[in-house]
């Protein structure tokens, strides 16, 4: 039986027919509505490639049963840039070479956006590393990722101050 799932995704509210109640939020995003920016690396909450924000909090969307998020507000990597203007975190990832193959990158970036918003890590590299450690990068772009998060934090602090 098809059920209707109401989600606000990247600011747009949508009624999504869910043909299979087993579908994870990740598979709904990727296979049902074509938002394939969010990646699947393990499908069991171990790699972070599928990280999205739900009501501002980062979660592993592969572990989220889609139907249990009815009414939620979801931000995916596709929702960060405003037109051609990259989000500061996205820009910092390019600048600091915070990726190689790019497969973990959407998850890293969503995690970084949330980490900065959480305000726990600030400009302490050790805490950034810790806070980003739920997102695996097999290319091991970790030095760049840490640098990118710090750069973006600084840029966003400046924006806030301005």
């Amino acid at each position, binding site marked *: 039986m098809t059920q209707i799932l109401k989600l606000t995704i990247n600011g747009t509210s949508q009624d999504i027919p869910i*043909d*299979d109640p*087993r*579908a994870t939020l990740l*598979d709904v995003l*990727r*296979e049902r509505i*074509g*938002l*394939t*920016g*969010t*990646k*699947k*690396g*393990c*499908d*069991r909450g*171990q*790699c972070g*490639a599928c990280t999205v924000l739900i009501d501002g909090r980062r979660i592993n969307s592969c572990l989220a049963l889609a139907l249990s998020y009815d009414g939620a507000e979801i931000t*995916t*990597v*596709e929702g*960060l*840039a405003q037109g051609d203007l*990259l989000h500061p975190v*996205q*820009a910092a*990832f*390019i*600048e600091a*070479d915070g*990726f*190689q*193959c*790019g*497969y*973990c*990158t*959407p998850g890293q*970036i969503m995690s970084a956006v949330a980490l900065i918003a959480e305000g726990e890590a600030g400009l302490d590299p050790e805490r*950034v*590393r*810790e806070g*980003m*450690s*739920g*997102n*695996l*990068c*097999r*290319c*091991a*772009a*970790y*030095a*760049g*990722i*840490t640098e990118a998060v710090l750069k973006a934090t600084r840029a966003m602090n400046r924006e806030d101050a301005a």
Partner: protein
Amino acid sequence: MADVMNIQGHVRLGSNAGQSMTRRDGVLKVTGRATYAADNRPEGVLHAVTATAGIARGRVTHLDVAAAEAHPGVVKVYTPANRPDLAVSPDEKIHGFAWRTEALQDDTVRYAGQPIALVVAETLEAATEGARLLAPRYDADTPRIGLDGGVPFQPETVSIGASPTLEAGDMDAARAGAARHLETVIETAAQYHNALEPHAITARWTGDRLEIDTPNQAIGLAKQSFAAYLGIDPAQILIRSPFLGGGFGSKAILFGGQLLAILAAKDLDRPVKLALRREQMYGPVGHRPATRQTLKLDIDPQGHISALDHHTIAVTSSFDDFIESASNASHSVYATKAMRTTHGAVRADTGTPGPMRAPGEAPGSAALEVAIDDAAYAMGFDPLEFRLRNYAETDPATGMQFSSKALRECYAQAAEAFAWKDRPLEPGSMKQGRLLKGWGMGTAQFPCPMFQAAAHATLRADGSAVVETSAADMGQGAWTSLAQIAADGLGIDIDRLEFRSGQSSLPDAGVAGGSGHTATAGTALFNAGADTIRQLAELALNDPASPLFGADNAGVTARGGRLYRNDDDTRSEAYEDILARAGLDLLRGDGKGAREGEPERAMFSHGGVFAEVLVDPDLGQVRVSRLIGAFAAGRIVNPHLARSQLLGGMIWGIGFALQEEAIHDVRTGRFTNADLAGYHIPVNADVPMIEALTVHEDDPFVNSLGIKGVGELGVTGTVGAIGNAVWHATGIRPKRFPIHPESLI
């Protein structure tokens, strides 16, 4: 802007290459718009899931196909009983770089996790459930697992067609004169590539034309291979592989699941998508096998190595022959009067190993560097001093000169940055709080192979250009650094260049592997550009209306989209003007990249890696607190990206030394940790202060562009450096990688 090239064939360092450009595909990757194979959703796509064997050896006796097919949404189940025919058995070695694979050719099981059926369904959920419902039953044999559980044999070749043995010099004489005989035995664990992107394919037939989206490191070869298995003309196949979510060797090889998805798509006349689950990547797509290595070093009274003997036993599968060539990593690193390297192998019930980032070199270097460190201490030398004392001025394996070797500078720069000179000789002498602190080093070395590549370059009427080659960017940055080289070949700014790559309709760029892709495909692209410019110059030089007319002997130089007379820099002409007068819309050149003839020099990239570790004396927990490497790898095309490659390799070294290990349950032959929670790879918090320096190196011999490789170099040296630092902290020599905490308490 510096000169790019001289038409008379003298190549100078270019204007685009050498710069730290950010990645050309950066915006696509940070916005989620980079399309990986499993991101494709062709109209009407079906989802396929493989069911995999729960035993490691035996036969499948029953699959509940009826239950699976009765599940809503399941379209069809393929088993050996109904799998459509292939032209060639997947057990056939169709060429030297083909692995035997499983595509439901029969009911035998040769390793745990082997595909035994394919379930195709309307949704991923239905296919997944269908695969579960198959509930296989088996006739199971006792599995043979690991170095000690398998069947030993003497391999005829190691790696891809290499000799298992090498002897240089007179071993007996060399050993007789030695003051110390030292023996080191080291084991290394089985490791799995675990590219973050699981292997995937989306296959679609239109009539007899096949379109495949699949990540692949050797697109041209893959096309030939698919065509051979399917019995069709390669021209009927288009492979797209614009982005690979990591490869590390595992995506250079085809696996049976790809063939099954293609067959199902044909049979059902709908596109089919298959993505392996993480645990399904532990078997059919290669791995680095476990090794046991024995190194015997004989040292003369002055602290020179007089004989080096490196023997490796490596695990391979029961049905194919990739043998990890770890002993060969000792060939060319240190001077010795005599050497012998040998290999043995063991057949076990696992998937067949394959090349994994620094194959042979990574485990071999790990063992060699530990043995060298042991020898240094035994002879009372600082580890760096001992390595300098045994510096190979010529290649000890062949007697050849090195094409270039700035290893001394690497050692010096990294040691300086690390402050190595304050290191006490005795282990267990340094502490940080309650933690034991140790410093260790290792030498990094990786060969510089070249493969075969072809490219086109086409100059357009507006002076911009397009270059084409089927290169693979698995994260190393090929799209960027190859475009930089191509722009140099054409003498244009990189912004004027369109770079087409990543699909099989383009000229074959060979394999992205062996750290030879930039050199090989780069040479082809550069030559294609140069060929185009040569034709353009000919047009101008023969055209009385051109300011370049008559410059024949002096020649012209291409830069910034113009040709300049070498004897008079004020006389130049824009490409578009030359083309316009000649009435040409397009001008196309071709280029090839390959090494001509037998090499007359030994060609390697080098580096020195220095590690600091902190060891908890009560828990045995090891943390790398500093890691600094300096590397010489010829001309560095893009320092920004090369640094990322080197750092990535060094971090793989951390994983190798301290974490990565696939563990079999020896009774069942199944893995106990085939996922990313149980199989540990480094996470961000495992990566401390880390730096990769590059040392300038001009190499006129390695290839016309002077490019070596950086993709695998960082793994070598690092593992040993960490192992040696652990010894320096604790006084305990690692006998095995990864180093387990319990071995240190």
